[in-house]
């Protein structure tokens, strides 16, 4: 694995899919707008190589119907990878270009679920939600093809994001395990059914998938648990889920949590003993008049060298953070954690909520800001 600089920069998860990829996957000719976007991306990001060039030429000539969806996803994956590399990140992936999204994709690779429809996350953002209608299982380990592709196409450190068991359970309706509970389904019965559901996903879906990724060569695995803070009384279940998922997994393990009350999660979450890094959102809460980084104080007295991935980019607003703001945020984190070796730099969460142009400017400034912070610490 390449040596990382101090204050390594890293992606978190998904980027928005470019129009040329979405239209290309449908099989028709690219619209003028998508073609313009493709040309603009080719100028910014060098993702045209020997394997993708013939297909890009076909799109340019308007004969896209010959480009299969698999090839489109591969070209998209290369674009996502080069996008992050060219922006200057140290740990990279492919922007999750092959995935539908972080919940639907693993559920599609699992058995025991049935999709019921879309529900709102906020404003005009939604996700497709499934009900667990039978005992859960794994159809086949997933993310293997995309990881192998990324590994074969980068000199940098690939970090594979994978949605955690607790989140998959929390974002699903639990019909099957709840039905097993006798009598009236009150708070006690619902909690017991949920625990069974979470632990089954951890053992039967996540652990075998992590194991398969490690066998393919993955060295850094990021388990995404955005739902971790949803039910403060279930912190122990989040920990149990992480620990069950990672039994026997020989890789650096990272846990990503966002938009949660960290005071309710920590120090309980530190019981996830295999977790070497907590990758967290902070920029969203760093608004005028409030220090969004004060919760880093929760890690001040953690003396086992565990790292914090510090969110310095707000992924819900188009405002472009300046390099100076990024630098300030990093230095605050270093000050709180007392050791720069414990600090990684990242966006709050995946940037798919922003346009690719906005994401690009944010990431470039994140890298510049990190360089400024490195200079300040030198």
């Amino acid at each position, binding site marked *: 694995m390449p040596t990382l600089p101090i204050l390594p920069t890293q992606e978190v998860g998904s980027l928005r899919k470019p129009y040329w990829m979405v239209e290309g996957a449908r099989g028709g000719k690219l619209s003028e707008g998508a073609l313009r976007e493709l040309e603009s991306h080719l100028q910014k990001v060098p993702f045209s190589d020997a394997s993708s060039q013939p297909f890009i030429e076909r799109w340019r000539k308007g004969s896209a119907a010959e480009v299969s969806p698999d090839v489109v996803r591969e070209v998209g994956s290369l674009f996502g990878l080069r996008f992050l590399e060219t922006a200057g990140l140290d740990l990279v992936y492919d922007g999750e270009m092959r995935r539908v999204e972080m919940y639907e994709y693993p559920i599609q690779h699992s058995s025991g679920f049935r999709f*019921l*429809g*879309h*529900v*709102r*996350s*906020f*404003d*005009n953002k*939604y*996700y497709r*939600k499934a*009900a667990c209608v039978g005992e859960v299982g794994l159809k086949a380990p997933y993310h293997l093809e995309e990881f192998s592709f990324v590994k074969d196409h980068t000199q940098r450190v690939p970090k594979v994001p994978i949605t955690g068991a607790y989140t998959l359970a*929390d*974002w699903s*309706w*639990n*019909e099957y395990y*709840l*039905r097993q509970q006798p009598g*009236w*389904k*009150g*708070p006690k019965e*619902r909690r017991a059914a949920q625990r069974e559901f979470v632990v089954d996903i951890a053992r039967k879906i996540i652990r075998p998938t992590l194991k398969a990724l490690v066998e393919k060569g993955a060295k850094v695995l990021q388990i995404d648990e955005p*739902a971790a*803070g*949803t*039910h*403060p009384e279930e912190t122990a279940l989040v920990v149990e889920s992480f620990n069950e998922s990672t039994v026997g997994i020989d890789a650096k393990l990272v846990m990503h949590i966002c*938009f*949660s*009350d960290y005071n309710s999660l920590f120090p309980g979450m530190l019981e996830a003993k295999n977790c070497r890094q907590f990758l967290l959102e902070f920029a*969203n*809460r760093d*608004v005028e*008049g409030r220090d969004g980084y004060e919760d880093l104080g929760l890690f001040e007295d953690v003396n086992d060298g565990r790292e914090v991935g510090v969110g310095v980019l707000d992924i*819900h607003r188009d405002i472009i953070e300046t390099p100076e703001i990024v630098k300030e945020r990093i230095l605050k984190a270093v000050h709180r954690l007392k050791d720069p070796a414990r600090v990684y730099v990242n966006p709050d969460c995946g940037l798919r909520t922003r346009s690719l142009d906005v994401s690009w400017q944010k990431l470039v400034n994140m890298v510049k800001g990190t360089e400024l912070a490195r200079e300040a610490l030198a």
Partner: protein
Amino acid sequence: MSTRAAVTTFLPRSEEVIAATREWERGRRSREDVDALYARWTQTVLQFEREQGFAWCTGGHLAWQDLLRPLVESSDGIVPGALTRWFETNSFYRRPVVEKLPSLDAGKISRMVPSADPDLTVILPGPWTFTGLSENRTGQGESAVARSLARYLREAVDALSRAGVKRFLLHEPLLAYTGEAPEDELRELYRVVTGGRPPSEFLLWTYFGNGTWLLPEAPKLGVSLVGVDLSETPLQDLTGSALPPGSSIGLGCIDPRTSLTEDPKDLDRLVKDVEAALHPGTLLLGPAAPMDLLPWDTAREKLAVLRPFAGGTS
């Protein structure tokens, strides 16, 4: 005793509306198109509510981005802040940031409800939740800002009443979630919102926690009933409440946190148990929590279970 049923929370957007709002965000659909779709689907929801024989109609509040946003967007003085988790769900709201004592654009809030339905009920945050979920950056004390937000809420109620709204459902998830509030402060805030010459009927709906402690408070808060979330409330807490016979009680019994459709026999047993224990005058059956946690088809299917309880007497 009479039983009634009604929609007491937001309803989900249909798949068609969801697709349209997504396309609008991506610049592929006009605002007018999306608004026309909201209007059409609101009529569909109103028709569904009438067909079920529900006690009133809401139209679902399909265009509202969250419980607090219409009050934020109709104000001068409150701005939408950080995206914040909506209690223990995978939904988020924009935390209102109170920058100065707010004034209301009455026309704007009035345009946010579908008109032309004489039996329209509008959902608004109760004053405790409105204040508790907002961030105070006015430089004034919390109590002063709470009173000011309650007055602002009353202005909104008055404006909507002038537009023809006859009934308001005040949502107070925070009261149930935290399970407490200083009695005097709570009554004072409600006096501001519901007191004086009340232009309309008020109901208080709680969820995301046990709200049974509020049941005896209903008359003192100026509301005709309090609804409780029975998925978060042990049944004995409800049946053990100290309520005078003949009271009105809201039973939040359709749970949007599970896609399983409620068994009508369970609901029937629930009604009988509550009747035997409390001898209420009216039981109003409705959602236990916001139904927009479900897709529209599932929500409609679950709500249809309430039909036998709409307009019954025993």
